[in-house]
């Protein structure tokens, strides 16, 4: 048991990384102490977050820091299982990424490392806040802080390319959120008189017309630009000018997952999945997300820059989760939630590999990677494993989330979505496997046949985290059951609805998904 009350733990989750951001500049002059601050706070954060798990497992939803700002606008934290899951992922990967950052930033002798770690800590703090948001306003607040705190990270290099990338990044993320998300919040408040996340959805009980639901869904789907739904995805490739640890943790995990997490949260707690599905207003989003899913994969095929290819792959994988939310069946939403975890671990591995290659050999283009697997066997083997997980092959974690998503699509009667998932998996193979093949089966350029190739790995601080997350992909395959148990704690129906709707097709959906996980 924890020595702190759950409420205190919530505040600590927000405060620890924030305190780190304040403390890091103090040790500007001694980099070792500075990194010790980052690592210590990362460990403390994970301990704090883990201590919250039993509370959620026991069905608790602690609240903290609630205070009214104006009528209808209050700031507050409230923990629920989906946010808990997101926090666990982000806190765990922050530790690993921090170790990796030390290797990368020092190995590469990057300038302005202090401000790098400060912004990073603020970004993590706002991710925690976002995951614990009690209402749309709090979520919006942390959403914007996350955008702003990552802008200096994206533009870290300080050259023209970074400036242009930062421009696109900031303009797309800020303008979508202000132009669509904020009016969506206004309208939600105007229609329901509240913005609190409520089990079963706050639009469920109110007599909103289908037109309003359709409008709100469009505003949310495009307003949450971090979810990378086409056509507002191109901030993500632009963000790749950032140092790789940023791309790895923020643009494969924290920022983009904050986007899809927000979408799931809105669908579950604002619309209510039943309300959304029965309104029939989400159908267009199913097609939109499907298009985004396939198109991004196709674009990924054509990218020679490794990080750009991974970025488009991320856009595609995010669309899985948006699609899951749009399907709005129990299994689909649960699959989408699980995909947050599975994709995070896989994609951070791939990005860290890309960064390791850059640190060790200054290679960024895939066409230059011939034989790199022989020089960097650990890194590229990890890349291979993570690729398999992203593709969705057993025995790696990625298979389960895709499975549940497919089941959810069948429940919703959208067989074509299943086809989309399958085509996409093939495309994943097509854009990830050639990299592995090239790395292992082609001789390095300029190498004489028969001559042994010396191993030249990235610094240990880079390689160890990569191996850890690659191993994580394997562990997740076996842990899927307990993750699913946890996800099932998310109250998708709300108190009132459970009796009325349980007779409907949803029971079947639940049985199907339950049967699947039991029969496994």
């Amino acid at each position: 048991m924890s020595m702190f009350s759950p409420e205190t733990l919530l505040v600590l989750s927000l405060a620890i990384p924030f305190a780190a951001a304040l403390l890091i500049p103090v040790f500007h002059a001694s980099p070792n102490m500075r990194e010790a601050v980052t690592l210590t706070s990362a460990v403390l954060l994970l301990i704090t977050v883990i201590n919250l798990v039993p509370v959620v497992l026991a069905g608790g939803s602690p609240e903290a820091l609630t205070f009214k700002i104006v009528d209808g606008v209050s700031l507050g934290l409230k923990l629920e299982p989906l946010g808990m899951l997101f926090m666990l992922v982000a806190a765990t990967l922050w530790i690993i990424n921090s170790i990796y950052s030390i290797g990368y930033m020092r190995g590469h002798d990057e300038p302005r490392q202090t401000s790098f770690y400060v912004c990073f800590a603020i970004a993590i703090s706002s991710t925690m806040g976002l995951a614990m948001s009690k209402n749309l306003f709090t979520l919006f607040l942390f959403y914007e802080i996350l955008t702003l705190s990552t802008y200096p990270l994206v533009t870290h290099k300080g050259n023209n390319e970074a400036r242009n990338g930062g421009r696109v990044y900031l303009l797309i993320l800020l303008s979508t959120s202000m132009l669509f998300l904020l009016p969506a919040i206004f309208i939600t408040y105007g229609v329901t008189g509240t913005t609190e996340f409520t089990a079963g959805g706050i639009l469920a009980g109110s007599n909103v017309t289908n037109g309003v639901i359709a409008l709100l869904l469009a505003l949310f789907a495009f307003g949450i630009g971090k979810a990378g739904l086409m056509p507002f995805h191109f901030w993500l490739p632009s963000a790749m000018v950032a140092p790789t640890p940023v791309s790895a943790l923020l643009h494969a995990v924290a920022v983009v997952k904050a986007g899809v997490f927000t979408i799931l949260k809105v669908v579950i707690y604002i619309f209510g999945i039943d309300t959304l599905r029965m309104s029939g207003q989400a159908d267009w989003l199913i097609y939109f997300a499907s298009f985004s899913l396939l198109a991004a994969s196709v674009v990924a095929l054509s990218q020679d820059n490794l990080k750009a290819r991974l970025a488009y792959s991320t856009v595609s994988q995010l669309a899985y989760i948006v699609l899951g939310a749009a399907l709005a069946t129990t299994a689909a939403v649960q699959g989408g939630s699980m995909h947050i975890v599975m994709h995070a671990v896989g994609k951070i591995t791939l990005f860290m590999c890309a960064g390791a290659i850059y640190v060790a050999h200054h290679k960024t283009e895939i066409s230059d990677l011939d034989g790199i697997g022989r020089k960097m066997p650990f890194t590229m083997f990890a890349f291979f494993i993570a690729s398999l997980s992203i593709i969705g092959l057993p025995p790696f974690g990625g298979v389960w989330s895709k499975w549940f998503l497919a089941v959810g699509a069948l429940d919703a009667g959208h067989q074509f979505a299943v086809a989309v998932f399958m085509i996409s998996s093939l495309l994943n193979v097509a854009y990830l496997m050639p990299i592995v093949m090239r790395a292992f089966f082609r001789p390095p350029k300029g190498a004489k046949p028969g001559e042994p190739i010396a191993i030249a790995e990235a610094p240990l601080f880079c390689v160890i985290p990569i191996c850890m997350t690659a191993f994580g992909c394997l562990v997740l395959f076996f842990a899927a059951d307990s993750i699913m148990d946890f996800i099932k704690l998310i109250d998708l129906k709300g108190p009132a609805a459970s009796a009325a709707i349980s007779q409907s097709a949803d029971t079947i959906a639940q049985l199907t998904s339950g049967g699947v996980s039991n029969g496994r």
Partner: protein
Amino acid sequence: MSVGLLTSVALAAGAAQAAGGHAVAAKPFILTEHLPILIVVIPLLAAALTAMLRNGRVAWAISLAVSWILPILAVMLILQVEEKGIISYALGGWAPPVGIEYRVDIVNAFVLLIVSVVGAIAMPYALRTVELDIDEPQRAWFYAIYLLALTGLLGMTITGDAFNIFVFMEVSSLAMYVMIAMGRDRRALIAAYQYLIMGTIGATFYVIGVGFLYVVTGSLNMADIALRIGPAFAESSPPVMAALAFIVVGISLKLALFPLHVWLPNAYAFAPKFATVFLAATATKVAVYILLRFYFSIFGSAISLTDLPITEMLLILSIAAMFIASVMAIYEDNIERMLAFSSVAQIGYITLGIALANKSGVAGSVVHLMNHAAMKAALFAAIGAILYRVGTARMSELGGIGRTMPLTMAAFVIGGLSIIGVPGTAGFISKWYLGVGAIEHGWWVVAFLIVASSLISIIYIGRFVEVAYFQPVSEASEKGSDPPFSMMLSIVVFTALTIYLGLDTAWSGQLAEKVAAVLVGGLAQ
């Protein structure tokens, strides 16, 4: 005109007469009963005192003391109003509506607070910048003029007499023309002259409007006019309409409603740095208050707003201001002028809330009076600090200024985020009220336009941020370093206020809602 003369008599005699009038003779002098007159007379007397001084530092110290006393009085007034309701203070013991009445309710108590707090925070900033901008022989006069401007603004706000407003309007405007003209840049003279012409037209229009009201109602006391204007309108509407037209156009000139804003950018850009900070945060706000008063408490209380052909006009001009002025800001190289255009756009938000005329919308306008004062003061103070150190406010010459003046630029970034309306800053709170107000009114498109226009500010704020942080340090920027403590103090307090008002609106938001309730609650159906 007799009432106007009475004003000057009353002012000249000051507090002594107020205290020694007939009614008071019977009972002892109680300070708190005379707060309404003290808040005007203290800066007025201090102005006279500093005008006789020759030492700038002493004049500054007196101004500082006065500026720090006034917010205390304003808070005491708010507490009194909260406790006892409307305060009616008969100037010189002459009972209203014949005598001049100082009438304090929650609406103008709130505005008094804004004006006095801005003056208090800005005063430390004056010390060094005035030493740079004004030659020693004139420094004490400059402070005297500042105190006169302050007197005028506070007087306009507190008085309950329509003609008395005109008198104080002239006091404050004349003082402001002088303050602007004292700028180092020779273009300051032209700017002051331009403002003088436009301001005089505005004041004239206003007084013509008041004349019409006097003809139809026979009164100059605003509360009295409000009672009498309904029957007058029923009897014959043209003179009332004419009064409305003259007053609204006159005040719109003063508050720089687009397209009557042309005097504003140069006036802000070439005035002494301290004058820019003070005027940008207060002058237009008081004019907005006068508009609120006439629109809601006088015309709106007697006549249904749907009968007054002004809502559409305000709506269209507000939206035009929000977009056109913002776009103009993008094309400005001089950052002070850029911020001035941004002010015109922000005034558009304020008048938009007035056009919405529902509780949330008006609360948005009212809270934006305070929020915009804080953020714009922070921005102008930051740019003033750059000018102080580097001598230029041209963006093209300020490459890399973020490296040499880190704290100043950090303040600018925070102020800029508030202009954009990022949550966690004061700007967001205003936008929230306005957005909700627009939705409640059923104008969903307007809600969309509010957020869309704020996107334009990302471009002009972002442009300078990029210049400041991404360009190599320019020749001019190399001279930069964060300003002296006294200036930094004002910058930091304004910036902190910008964030504080964005997070904790326990009193500012509630106060604004109360103000809005008073204004909208009095509307005729």
